[in-house]
């Protein structure tokens, strides 16, 4: 599972509210789609939990369902308390899990 964290805007100070965009490359199969050749149902495969942590403290927890689009985007706000590490842990219903980190470096 490839992932990406984007923080907008790029330059921010401590105390600013920034947007954190988290993207994951994932098929987000609903389990309702059929294989066009065989007619068999394609098993459900979707991200079901995403946790946003700052310096190992939970900021936001998400319970996700298969209705999110393929390669889902999840965007939240975050009030920057100071420098530290942002960590996003995403897990899918097949047990696959991935951790992505990004440094938080406020200027000034």
């Amino acid at each position, binding site marked *: 599972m490839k992932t990406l964290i984007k923080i907008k805007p790029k330059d921010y100070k401590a105390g600013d509210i920034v947007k954190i965009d988290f993207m994951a490359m994932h098929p987000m199969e609903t389990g309702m789609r059929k294989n066009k050749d065989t007619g068999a149902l394609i098993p*459900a495969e979707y991200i079901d939990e995403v946790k946003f942590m700052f310096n190992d403290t939970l*900021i*936001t927890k998400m319970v996700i369902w298969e209705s*999110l689009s*393929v390669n889902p985007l999840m965007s939240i706000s975050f009030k920057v308390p100071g420098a530290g590490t942002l960590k996003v842990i995403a897990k899918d219903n097949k047990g696959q899990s991935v951790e992505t980190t990004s440094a938080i470096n406020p200027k000034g």
Partner: protein
Amino acid sequence: MERRSFLKGFGAAAACAIALPHVASAAEEKKSGGPNEMNFETAVAAITGGKALTPSAKVKMEAPEIAENGAVVPVKVTVDSPMSAKEYVKAIHILASKNGNVRCANIYLTPANGEAYFGTRIKLGGTQDVVAIAEMSDGTFLSAKQNVKVTIGGCG
């Protein structure tokens, strides 16, 4: 006589089917590889625990009125509320009222967010209302909805 007893038996069987709907907990449902299904009323009741939803202008939802492609529909929700330790938005829930599984995402926020905001892209099987529910720290549930017309469904 035979027909009558058959009807009686049939009636009893039908009553059983209605009386015992299959209620799967979220956890056991997620283990199965098949499709999850939940209708709107059940999903709302699971979130609010039976409390009333109050439509509120504090919940602002940005979604297109017409989506040409139901596979990628951008949805942004902002809740007008302080995010202090005393008063904040506990959670934002997004539901697509007519999808097979109406639940899209449940976002559990903390005061560290600074602002109650969630943005994503969802799949819609057809024209329907997208509903956002904000769970406030005082235990109330505010909601907003928007009808999205879908030209090509996103679940096939």
